[in-house]
């Protein structure tokens, strides 16, 4: 009986696993589920995504990101125009009051330049986000293949 319950619990934990949504807060800014994709070996860059919600009444801006796991971190927007993909830096990303900036939906990503290791599925690494008004906050990026909410759409069942 106990063994079966334990097995069920273990399965549940495994299912929830690394993609279980996690959240952080800095003042009136909520940081929803920061995550990063696994990187191929010797990849010179890694990506990061999250959802920033401003529950306050004034605009705030994400002005800097840093992580001990990378030499540098920038925010970029990917654009595909006339079939050409390009990436442009975004300085001081504005989060309007009452609004949510969903990195994935808005083709934004954190670019971690010079990661100190290959990022593997299920790992976590720390980062510091600095907001103009909300100040600095420590967060943790979860390494996973896809955003948690997208997981059911991946019916291939064998991942990437």
């Amino acid at each position, binding site marked *: 009986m106990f063994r079966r319950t334990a097995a069920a619990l273990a399965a549940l934990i495994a299912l929830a696993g690394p993609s279980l949504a996690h959240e952080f807060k800095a003042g009136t800014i909520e940081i929803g589920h920061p995550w990063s*994709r*696994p*990187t*191929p*070996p*010797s*990849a*010179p*860059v*890694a*990506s990061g995504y999250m959802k920033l919600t401003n529950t306050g009444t004034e605009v705030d801006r994400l002005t800097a990101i840093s992580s001990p796991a990378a030499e*540098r971190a920038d925010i*970029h927007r*990917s654009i*595909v125009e*006339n*079939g*050409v*993909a*390009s*990436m442009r*830096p975004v300085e001081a990303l504005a989060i309007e009051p009452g609004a949510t900036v969903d990195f994935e939906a808005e083709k934004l*990503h954190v*670019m*971690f330049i010079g990661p100190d290791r290959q990022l593997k599925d299920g790992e976590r690494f720390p980062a510091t986000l600095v907001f103009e008004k909300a100040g600095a906050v420590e967060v943790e990026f979860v390494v996973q*293949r896809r955003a948690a909410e997208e997981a059911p759409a991946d*019916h*291939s069942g*064998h*991942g*990437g």
Partner: protein
Amino acid sequence: MSGIKLFRIATWVAVAVLGGILLASSGWLPGTRPTPESVATGTARVGGPFTLTSHKGDAVDNAKLAGKPYLVFFGFTHCPDICPTTLYELTNLMADLGPAADRLTPLFITVDPERDTQTVLAEYMTAFDGRILALRGDKAATDAAVKAFAAYYRKVPTDGGYTMDHTAGVILIDEEGRFAGTLDLHEPRENVLAKLRRLTAA
């Protein structure tokens, strides 16, 4: 409405449509003229000689690839988002295609040979399906390959380095070496798989 009148209307509609297509493709219409930055992947312009080296160290050229369909996409390893995502997606697609995937060679051509050395690519590619080849060449060889697929790339300086703009889609080449369309990995997975199944059907 009489049959003759219907026929006449249909004829004029056909004339208008054809005329529009001709006008648009000739670049006469404002806004349709291809700018130097535009990307054309029309049948007529795709195909041409190129020689590159794979991440495994083998020379790969258009002659060697002939006889089997292949996929081409341009990218670089300093690309955190679109490029690895495309490679992971192609890895999944190769698995889903089953045995037909053995007839297909996906090519990842780097537009940043300066940083994407063969050693970097060899390590990088271990994360993906082993049938996907990363290709590189010097500037001239890279330019030739880009031209062969009517693609586009450009080096863009950034604060403290540079990034590359490049053609985003996956180009399909049939076993005769002809342009057979493109894949947009955002289209429904079933469409993507159907295109690949068609391409690999003997």
